[in-house]
Every structure is written in structure tokens, then in C-alpha cells.
């Protein structure tokens, strides 16, 4: 409480502040454990059993199992920690980042080669850029939805 959060009006963006850090503590510490090859092997052998060793919430475990990174972030995960899951899966950082937009891998890659996502319309909530809530998911994810 009383923590000033000037960043809440930025669309599609979660700042890893005190509240998120407290919420996601064990989710992130679980991710950290994947930096050891032994733990990666145990995780890959039985993901559910490995997750159950950690005092994470059920929604956090479900989000990890389904590799829903947006949900992981909503539940307190930080992308640098979550990246250990992707690394364990053999995914690149571009594949991980792209997965949060709804775009296909190729669509996201093409966007980046074309110069990346524009800040226009994406600086503040209420503008009309492609990162705004009313335009999610993007790309093929969005087309599938509609």
C-alpha cells in the first residue's frame, strides 16, 4: 500500500515491483532452480511432481504447465526467471517473447525484422496501438479468435 506506481497506465506491460515480487516469490524461485541441469532433468521427467515440491499456488503451477507466460507474469512471475522454463524447453527468448502476443513465431519475427513494434499508440492505456488490451491477442491468435 502507498507504493507509488506511475507505470500502471502502460498497456501490455507489468512492472516487477514489490507487490509482484511478493506474489511471485516461489514461482520465480522454482524457475531459478532450473539453472541446474539435474533439476531440469527432474522437471522434464515429471513436471507436475517437480512443481509440487514448491509452495506455489495451483494457478501458478497450471500456468507453468501450460507455458502461459502472460498468466505466469500476472501471477508474479518475472520474465528473466520465466526464461529458465523456456531455456529448459529449448526455446529462444524471441519465441518466448512472441508467445505473449498471440502472434505466430513467424509473424513476431517478421514484425521485429520490419523494425519492431511501434511505440505509437502503445505509450498509454486508452490509445489505439497494437499492444492495447482491446486488440489482444494479436496476429494469428487474434484472427483465430474472431
Amino acid at each position: 500500500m502507498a507504493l507509488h506506481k506511475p507505470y500502471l497506465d502502460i498497456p501490455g506491460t507489468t512492472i516487477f515491483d514489490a507487490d509482484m515480487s511478493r506474489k511471485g516469490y516461489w514461482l520465480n524461485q522454482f524457475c531459478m532452480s532450473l539453472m541446474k541441469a539435474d533439476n531440469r532433468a527432474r522437471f522434464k521427467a515429471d513436471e507436475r511432481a517437480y512443481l509440487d515440491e514448491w509452495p506455489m499456488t495451483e494457478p501458478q503451477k497450471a500456468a507453468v504447465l501450460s507455458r502461459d507466460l502472460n498468466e505466469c507474469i500476472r501471477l508474479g512471475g518475472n520474465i528473466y526467471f520465466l526464461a529458465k522454463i523456456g531455456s529448459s524447453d529449448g526455446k529462444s527468448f524471441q519465441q518466448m517473447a512472441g508467445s505473449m502476443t498471440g502472434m505466430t513465431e513467424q509473424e513476431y519475427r517478421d514484425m521485429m525484422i520490419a523494425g519492431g513494434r511501434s511505440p505509437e499508440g502503445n505509450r498509454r492505456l486508452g490509445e489505439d496501438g497494437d499492444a492495447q488490451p482491446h486488440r489482444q491477442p494479436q496476429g494469428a491468435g487474434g484472427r483465430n479468435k474472431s
Partner: protein
Amino acid sequence: MARITASVYTSHVPAIGAALDLGKAQEPYWLPVFQGYEFGKQWIAERRPDVVFLVYNDHASAFSLELIPTFAIGTAADYEIADEGFGPRPVPRVQGHPELAWHVAQSVIQDDFDLTIVNRMPVDHGLTVPLSLMFGERHPMRDAWPVKVIPFAVNVVQYPAPSGRRCFQLGQAIRRAVESFDADLDVQIWGTGGMSHQLQGPRAGLINREWDNRFLDQLIHEPAALAQLPHIDYVREAGSEGIELVMWLIARGAMADVAGGPVPHVAQRFYHVPASNTAVGHLILENP
């Protein structure tokens, strides 16, 4: 006396390390990136420093949520390469410079910067990718890096990161500390991370070419003004991970002109989009 001869600024995108390690440097996607560092590789071969004071951030590699130092200085003799989830990068271990590192630690703590002193710290892509970019590929066992390195880790993962103003002041204190070390050493200070990028959420992939280039302009010509930029501006304009750019202000603060010396010479300026999710920026400033 030791002296800071130059500062080097560069992004430290993990995919650049992966591209090098997997032999993809000649592919059309990566070629323009590595070409931007050809000048730097020659430049540093000709004026190799004894020590690189390497400002970077740990990406949840050495530091978990158990302990989050705002500023951590490595005073160890050597550093292992972190396993970031797919095995350690195949590069040589990093050799430290304990004497100079301790000297800087003691000096800047007495100058009212509240450092954490670290003697065991696996170093991740934030530190090794800049070394690879400037010194090229090195075999993990047969080769060594041609310089000693003092790793200086800045928290930019857990909000709040230190302010740009604080970073710029710290750079000035580091310069004073280096210049009071009584061995004849050429020291470079590197600021790494950035430029614009966002790795998370529906806004992932944000790039702001205009803002980045204005940042480069200001970093060169009016760093004190740039240091006043608040955290929120980085996030809004350059993406949530764009905040890494505050680390460049530490290196810039250590240049002679900030203490009334001569204006630095811009030896190299390079900008390219994209490397994976990120805009790559690179500067070399020499103290004349």
C-alpha cells in the same frame, strides 16, 4: 596511476551470444550486427586495456529473489560462467582484478555509495556477450579473455532500479577511485544492456528507433541532462527492459569531461534493429 582511457557501450542481447556460439555469425540475419562491431574489435586490439570495469546486470542468474543488491562489485580473482538454463556459454572463465576492484569498492563506499562486495558470482550473458562482441570468439578451455574484468552488477530486474542520476554520480566516484589507484593501468569502463526492448506481455517487441538515437545523442553531448530522465520514461518509450540503459550512465559518468576534462572523441557509433527482440546500440568514447 591508473586511468580510464575510454568507455564502451553496447547491448548484451543473449541471442547474440547464441548466434556466435552456434556459428551463425555469417547468416544474413546476424551479419549486420557483427559488422557493427568490426571497428570495435580492431580498435580494442590496438589499444587493449589492462582492465575492463564492466557494468552489466545479472538476469536472475547469480541473484535470485533471496537477495537483490542494487550495486554489486566483484572482487574475486575469477568468475565462472553461469548456466542460464541451457548450460554455460562456451567461453573462457572471467579473470578478475581483485586489487583494483577492492580499491574501487573501498573508495566508493567511503564516497557514500552503498555497494555490496561479492566474491562469488557466476556471470551471465549480460557480461559475456559484450566480451564476445569486442574480443570475438574464444575457446572456453584453450583461450582466455585478453583483459582482466571487474564485474559490476546493477539491479534492473526488481523495481526500483537505481535512478539515472545515481548511476551518473556513481560513475564519477568510480573515476575518482580508479585515478587514485597507484599502479600503471589502462582501464576501460563499459556500460551494457539496452537499447529499447520489451520481453514481456502483449507489448513485447517494442522498439523505439527515434528515442534510442536521441539517447545516444544525449549520452554523448549532454549526459548530465540525460541522467535526470525518470524511470517511467525509459519504460514508456523504450520498453520495460529498456531500463537497462541506466547502466550506460555509470560508464558515461566516469569520463573525463564530466569532471571538467576534455570532451570525449566518438570513435564509433552503431545502431541496428533487430537482434532477436532488441535494438542494438554501440558507442565507443575515448578520453583524448
